[in-house]
């Protein structure tokens, strides 16, 4: 379960002065559902997700992961989340196995639990073939599978995906999409940011459209179509953010 209540994040910029990257964002994501944050580049999606993942501290507002305050107990929060984005890279000089092992140990898993979890995940993601290969020698698709394994090794109840398919080819994107669907099936709470409309239509049970740091609309894909009277998601999105088509 994720709760964001009036989240605010401001940055100090030398040229622009104080910038409100996120300005009073509120939403709730439930277990077994995929919640989509839809917005253009610079809308505030990444900053919001980074606050939920405790990478950034909110300037104001509150956020809870499974009832735990991100501000008060960030380490406890991080134990309960899996975070995957296009920019969460791998350690090139570690092998795929060492990479997953390292994170398993950071999550405090004992060696026997870690071995069992790694075998399960490597089976499901078909990683055994390249498990001993150095990450910098893997293909993009193989790297993405290692990232998935890294994010799920501690069985987090909450998954945060920040534009996870950015810059990936169709085949690799499909692996990620299937993984997100699997997370829902397994009962995890999933939050997913994107600016790709087809991903929203395929995956999201509920969405929030974020623009200039604020949530301008919330609901299911169908309810937003109904509210705008438009069918293509691109048109729905443009209308809600006040941009001409």
């Amino acid at each position: 379960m994720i709760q964001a209540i009036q989240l605010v994040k401001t940055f100090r910029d030398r040229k622009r002065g104080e910038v409100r990257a996120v300005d009073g964002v509120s939403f709730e994501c439930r277990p077994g559902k995929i919640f989509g944050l839809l917005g253009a580049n610079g809308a505030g999606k990444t900053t919001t997700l980074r606050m939920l993942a405790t990478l950034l501290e909110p300037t104001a507002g509150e956020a809870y992961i499974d009832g735990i305050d991100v501000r008060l107990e960030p380490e406890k929060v991080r134990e309960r989340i899996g975070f995957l984005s296009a920019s969460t890279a791998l350690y090139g000089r570690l092998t795929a196995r060492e990479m997953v092992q390292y994170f398993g140990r950071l999550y405090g898993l004992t060696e026997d639990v870690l071995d069992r979890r790694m075998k399960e995940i490597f089976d499901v993601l078909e990683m055994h073939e390249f498990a001993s290969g150095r990450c910098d020698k893997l293909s993009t698709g193989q790297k993405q599978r290692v990232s998935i394994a890294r994010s799920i090794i501690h069985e987090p109840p909450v998954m945060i995906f920040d534009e996870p398919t950015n810059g990936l080819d169709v085949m690799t994107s499909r692996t990620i999409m299937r993984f997100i669907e699997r997370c829902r099936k397994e009962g995890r709470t999933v939050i997913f940011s994107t600016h790709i409309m087809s991903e929203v239509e395929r995956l999201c049970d509920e969405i929030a459209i974020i623009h200039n740091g604020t949530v301008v609309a919330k609901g299911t894909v169908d309810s937003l179509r109904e509210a705008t009277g438009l069918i293509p998601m691109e048109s729905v999105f443009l209308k809600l953010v006040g941009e001409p088509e």
Partner: protein
Amino acid sequence: MSTPTPNLKNRDLKRARFSRIFVVFGKEFRETFRDTRVLFGVVISPLLITPLLFAAIGFFVNQKIAEEKQETLSVALVGAEQTQDLTDTLKKDGTLKLTMLPNLAEAEKQVKDRVQRAALILPANAKTSLDAGETLNVELLFDQSNEKSRNAQGRLKEALKTFNEATLTTRLQARGLSQSLIKPTEVKSRNLASDKATGSLILAMLLPYVIVLSSAFGGMTSAFDTCAGEKERGTMETLLVSPVSRTEIILGKVLTIASVGMVSAVCSIIGILIAFQGGLRALGPEAQGKISFSYPAIGITLLLVIPLTLFVSSILLVISSFARNQKEAQSYALPGIMLVILPAMLSMFLGEESSISYSVVPILNTALVIKQQLTNVVNYQFIGLALGSSLLYAAVALAVVVALFNREEILFRS
């Protein structure tokens, strides 16, 4: 994939801070030594390149000295007819090829043209002057800009010294006087230092510098790779979403850099000792590589090197945390490198019994304590102050890097 277990059982979680710091350290250390740049700089270069380089220098210096000793140099004498004794002395020297020249102008021309390497010019009244027991003014022509000419000058001076001694003996005997008349004292120096202490002279000067520099900068590549490099490659974000705290991460990294520095120092010491054993015999007994380093001395050196590596590692990580990428980190580090090199170099010229005030100068204090250990100087007050101040500097630098690493505007600086 199995269903999630929202509350991981306590037995599955090891929350001890130290274990996480060591997990970070273990991974960083392993990854660091897979970096060919680090492997080359920290292990291969000091253990292989340095001894080979020193061996090559030693070989060429030895060869040159041998060649110089054997080579016959052409010298000229003007006014040879004046004194047969001097001519005979010069002829006896097998390393000189003597040519008689008629006048000064010809001698100057031939020395300038390097036909002759040096020339002795006797005055016209040389015979009369010598027979009368006077001091003969002899002119020696040579070319300062030419190495062989300088050598020929040296050999001619030696030959003149032999001639002077022989002539003096003859003059004293003719007057019935003893040699002791012109030599009221005869000095016989006796060196009380052991062979080992004498042998360690150059090492005592060089090793503190090498130990300090290698332990300080051995981990530099790793420091820039592990922080600025992580930001650059995007692995920093991956690491920060794990439950390990930022303080634990940075402590694991500091520990890694400091350890790489220690490995670097050990490899450099071994490399220098191999080099001294192998290649530098030509430089005389001071460079024979015999060294006296007792166990307590090793212990004291280690005790001082640990805070030094922690201090410099923390500073390198401050730079690395602040920089956006490795290139930027390298640019920021340049002035800092000089700040470490200068006090380390200063230790080469300061004596082991230096002023107590140097014991609180960072870097220099460690180098001087190592120098004291190598020359068997025991000064507990100096060691205590050096250790105390080094620990303080390390603690302050560590606190700064921990504080900096906990600031999100630094970690996400772009």
